[in-house]
């Protein structure tokens, strides 16, 4: 058994925390860092609620060992709003009711964020493929697709 000093970047800030080798990334974020936006809905890797970005790619924080994140850059839902203002995706999920109970929402938005960063105008199929690991029990996904499409439009308008 071991403990280590973990150096990692969380939402743009470099941190150094003592963590047990067996610590899960989701617990590190929620308890050590205090960012509770990242949720846990299953017992490991089945629902996507804990999705965060690691070096820009979606990862399941609940089946990621924090120790394996040394030197990596982690982004959580809390990183998206700038100066208290919602990001285009957050605004779209709010205005188009992509979130009902809101519990899957952080993971859903982070998966969508990863998609829009590599494809700002995704097809509906691409949206569905990118969010296929994020279970939502409220929306039937219809308004989630619409929310991502709305964010994509907002990004396009922002560019013009």
């Amino acid at each position: 058994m071991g403990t280590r000093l973990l150096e990692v970047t969380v939402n743009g800030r470099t941190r150094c925390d003592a963590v047990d080798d067996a610590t899960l990334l989701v617990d590190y974020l929620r308890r050590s860092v205090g960012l509770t936006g990242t949720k846990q809905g299953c017992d490991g890797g089945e629902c996507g609620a804990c999705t965060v970005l690691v070096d820009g790619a979606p990862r399941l924080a609940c089946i990621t060992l924090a120790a394996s994140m040394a030197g990596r850059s982690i982004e959580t839902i809390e990183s998206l709003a700038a100066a208290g203002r919602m990001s285009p995706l957050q605004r779209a999920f709010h205005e188009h009711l992509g979130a009902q109970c809101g519990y899957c929402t952080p993971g859903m938005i982070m998966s969508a964020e990863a998609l829009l960063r590599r494809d700002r105008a995704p097809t509906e199929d691409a949206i569905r493929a990118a969010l296929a690991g994020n279970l939502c029990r409220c929306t039937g996904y219809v308004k989630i697709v619409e929310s991502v499409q709305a964010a994509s439009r907002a990004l396009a308008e922002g560019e013009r």
Partner: protein
Amino acid sequence: MTIDATTPRFEFRRAASVGEAVQWLATPGARVHAGGTDLVPNLRRGLERPSIVVDIGGIAGLAGIAWRDDACAIGATVTLARLAADARVASTYPALAEAAAAVGAPAHRSAGTVGGNLCADTRCVHYNQGAWWRGAVGGCLKRGGDVCHVAPQGRRCHAAFCGDLAPALIALSAELDVASYGGVRRMAAVDLYRDDGAAHLALLPGELVTAVRLPPPDGVSGYRKARVRGSIDFPLAGVAIALRVGQRSIERAIVAVTGVGPRPVVVGTEAIVGRRVDDETAALLATRVEQSVKPMRTTATPAAYRRQVAGVLAARLLRTLAA
């Protein structure tokens, strides 16, 4: 704040080289870690109790895809997402790209690796459960008990290997580099597996799959996966075919099926080689597949369905590849 305390804590070691990794892996109870998508869920359920977790994610040289003409070497820590997105892999080895894209969901694929998918643990509804649950049934042959709840009369574990890449790599005649303290040995992908759900990998302690080597493609290939949902699910059955069709008839066919037993099943294709690809040949292949695979009740979905659908997928894929 750690993984369930029912799991003894372990030491996480980040290997800088293959040499270091295989040295550590020779320690009793050591486990390999790259993306963690297979190991960590098992840690959380107390299915694995490693002394050391050896992370190979930082080893330079394991994360590349190298081409020589149309042959290819893929490092063990290449992620499934990268494999699925690689245009040259998709055009040269469609079965492999399709299999990589069929694994889990995007966040599994951006973490999960080629080596990890090849060496994934076998699965069973009586095994992939929490500690309380397994305690309630007294464990099973694979872990902590002496009865297989799938076939209580028997003395062997039927847990099914459910990796998607393996059948594709077998069909594509891939070989594996297996490193150990003594050096590197080469084995056919199909030889990685044993017909025992409790010990399904033919690796010795201290051995590590470091790369997959693919010969130039000999014809066309594809992979089809049966699952209930459009994502996340492990295969109820997954079929890969590599096929060379001459002017009139099938000259060569390799068919491998995953998710139907402790190891991928290679289906004999003598019956269809030499035949034209038509409905009758497809039906013949379906029958051969159904006769060759013997899924047991390791999933909530009935085993008979997995056998049937494996045949259907094989027949369909054959027709598609020949079209």
